């Protein structure tokens, strides 16, 4: 749900109607494309070669640091629900380690 520049969300009556009109996140063709993309350009390798922090990662960093300071955590166990490739924290690792 990154920035959009045109209308790409269309109101539906209920979840079932929206689902019926949709192809879905688990379509084989999409999953195959995502895996192909990762193999071609592993995001963790790109991120490891250059330290570039996006705005949303700064927001995540701020929240994680608040939790860490509040509890004096050194080890943090995170459940990233729906986190896709799970790469949003990789630049943060470089900053905090």
């Amino acid at each position, binding site marked *: *749900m*990154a*920035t*959009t*520049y*045109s*209308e*790409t*969300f*269309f*109101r*539906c009556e209920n*979840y079932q109607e*929206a*689902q019926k*009109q*949709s*192809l*879905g*996140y*688990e*379509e084989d063709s*999409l*999953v195959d*494309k*995502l895996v192909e*993309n*990762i193999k071609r350009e*592993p995001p*963790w390798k790109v991120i490891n070669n250059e330290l570039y922090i996006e*705005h*949303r990662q700064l*927001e*995540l960093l*701020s*929240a*994680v640091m*608040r*939790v*860490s300071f509040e*509890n004096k*955590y*050194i*080890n*943090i*166990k*995170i*459940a*990233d*629900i*729906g*986190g*896709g*490739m*799970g790469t*949003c*924290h990789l630049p943060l*690792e470089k900053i*905090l*380690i």
Partner: protein
Amino acid sequence: MINWDWTVFESDKVALAYSQFEKESGIKWQKSSGDFVDSHDIGLFSCSLQYLQSPFKVLRKFASKCKYLIIMRLPLIDESNHVITKQIFTEGIYHEASSSWPAWFFSKNRFYSEIEKIGKVIYKWKTPTEIIHFEGKSIMMEGVLVRVNNVVPGRG
């Protein structure tokens, strides 16, 4: 100095497909439909809660095992009820795959009523780099850090 233990909970097919990258990435993938037995310090929902069929049921499930919740890149609207939409794509890999899926816009009041049942808001923020268009309005994504109550309704 912080040591991360990072586990991504994804849909069954995606978790299975991505798990082949665990060794090289250092990231673990688990099926979100499976039993969630381990406790975590933080449950992170980054642009994901709005894509769940039953978002608040899942939120309570993870709140029962996490001390804090970071919920970010949320589309909140000033309506009395949550709104369900179908999202389409005009560019990128999702467009190439002709993808589309249901996406919620959450009523701000109702969203924070749900959060109050789970824990205490420590702070909120807006994400000016992520603005989406919906029915002629520009909606800036938002985020919230929540300290989870010791006893969450539905826990156990």
